[in-house]
């Protein structure tokens, strides 16, 4: 009788193990489907001659439509994300240094908590607040690479702060003490010894922030705007990949939808590469710091 009950409990345990396995399959199915569809529908667009060197074709609905041309969108995304990284990386890294390397009473904690909460602010509000400011201040450049970069850097700064802080925390205190014992000044010790030691972690955080920004469409809707042309100047609206996907998908024109899948495939491949690199960097850093 007791055996019977035990068998029943065992059975329950095994069925739940199977059930949780099915959960994972259900969760991973969309990933497989997205990657499959991106290759199926976007492969032809992306791996076609001239896909990265020509502009978006005009909308058309016959079968002989042109489907090449994500060049300006790649260029625009590179520029706006590059500008945003140029702002957010120095600001974020130095702010993280203040929060973790200087014992400024509760201020350091307040900054990391604020950064943590800011990573939870909906990205569209980062765009809305930049738009709100520039419409008041200078409506002429409300839609430009400048405002786009500002919105993206508002999104990136909290991520860079948090990941840099975590990377700095992994550096053992003995490294700082060794620097102090040699009489090196604090700023040199921080920038040239502690920061360098944590560089793989910092680089990983920056890469993740960059990838996040490269795929963000919401804050760009009313900051960078959209264009189908090559760069017209930093004070002009510009082409970018996420809004190409958004507008292409909603346009309903077969060739623009195809183009959106091509852009999707491009972003997915980038994301995959960056994830592999960052995993490798984290692993190497763990090894170097002795599993700390």
């Amino acid at each position, binding site marked *: 009788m007791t055996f019977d009950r035990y068998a029943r409990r065992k059975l329950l345990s095994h069925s739940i193990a199977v059930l949780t396995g099915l959960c994972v399959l259900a969760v991973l199915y969309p*990933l497989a489907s997205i990657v499959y569809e991106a290759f199926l529908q976007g492969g032809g667009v992306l791996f076609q001659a001239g896909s990265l060197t020509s502009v978006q074709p005009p909308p058309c609905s016959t079968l002989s439509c042109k489907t090449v041309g994500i060049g300006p969108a790649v260029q625009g995304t590179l520029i706006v994300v590059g500008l945003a990284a140029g702002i957010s990386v120095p600001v974020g890294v130095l702010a993280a240094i203040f929060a973790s390397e200087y014992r400024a009473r509760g201020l350091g904690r307040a900054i990391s908590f604020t950064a943590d909460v800011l990573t*939870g602010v909906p990205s569209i509000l980062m765009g809305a607040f930049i738009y709100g400011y520039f419409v008041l201040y200078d409506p002429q450049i409300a839609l430009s690479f400048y405002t786009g970069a500002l919105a993206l850097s508002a999104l990136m700064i909290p991520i860079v702060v948090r990941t840099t802080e975590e990377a700095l925390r992994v550096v053992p205190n003995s490294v700082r003490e060794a620097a102090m014992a040699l009489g090196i000044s604090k700023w040199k010790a921080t920038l040239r010894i502690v920061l360098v030691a944590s560089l793989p972690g910092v680089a990983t955080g920056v890469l993740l922030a960059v990838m996040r920004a490269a795929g963000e469409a919401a804050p760009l809707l*009313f900051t960078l705007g959209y264009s189908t042309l090559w760069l017209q100047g930093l004070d002009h609206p510009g082409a970018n990949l996420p809004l190409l996907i958004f507008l292409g998908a909603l346009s309903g024109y077969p060739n623009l939808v195809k183009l959106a899948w091509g852009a*999707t495939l491009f972003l997915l491949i980038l994301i995959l590469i960056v994830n592999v690199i960052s995993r490798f960097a984290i692993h190497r850093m763990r090894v170097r710091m002795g599993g700390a």
Partner: protein
Amino acid sequence: MDVPTLSPSSSKPAEAPKDSPRSIPVHRWPDRLFFGLVAALGLSVIGLAAAIVAILVYGSRYSFQAFGFSFLWGTVWSPTSTPPIFGVVPFVVGTVVTSAIALLIAFPLALGSAIFLTTNAPRWLRGPAGTAVELLAAIPSVIYGLWGIYIVHPYMATTVEPALKRYLGFTGLFDGTPLGIDVFTASVVLAIMIVPTICAISRDTLAAVPQSQKEAALSLGATDWETTRVAMIPYARSGIIGGTMLGLGRALGETMAVTMLIGNIDKVPTSLLSQGQTIASLIANELLNNNGPLQESAVLEAGLILLVIALLVNVVARLLVWRVLSVGGGGAVE
């Protein structure tokens, strides 16, 4: 290094030794400059948060002057009537309903996956499967939207929604024509997007349960599931709740996929198969294309409300997660 007191050119030889180690005076000003720089940038993070609040508050002044607090319970959003009327209720309802359904779908899947990845999965599978779940979190919202329109939407319209209508139609939740572009489809895609957030944090907190806790249950003859249920889930509870709230925070502010799938109609949704609008999709649709400063201001005020909701959810979530992961548990003590 020179000893300052012996140098005849030094103007104040007596003061140097008072200041602790020798090399410090030489570096003092660069150190101060560096401190000033990092302190200013550190404070700029707090300044960024303040600026977001300040600009949204300032931007919503026209709307606040025109409608006051009736904006909060107004159910009509009509930019084209004379005078225009703006009430935020349709979008608050849209946001809360889509996020709640997404959470209902995502939570069991995410918790199940987290349990599988920490207890049931063979060791060689844990790393790759965990990585794959995290990759889901890295896919941009707009890609989920594209996939939602061309893959999920037809399937919803032809298969899932008619079935739901047939079997659950009596509840009244599925009234209307199953179009596939509606509150329900938006919620399902939203659920897929927040699973990785909930799963990753639940998995981390479950993995942080001490081995002794599990061994105690196993030594009493508990099966794997009983160990999970009795020894692990209670211990990791606040982390799991915190992770779920972070997922909720993400769902509340998710924009592109929802904008592409919800239908974008400025009305309170009457069923899960009707079109609607969330606060985020309202901002995406109407901040740039509007009928003048009053509507723009009303959209920014809706944004302010979204900010308040998202901040509340996030602060509570962070506090819960921080407590578990930094203090090293304690969930079991309560």
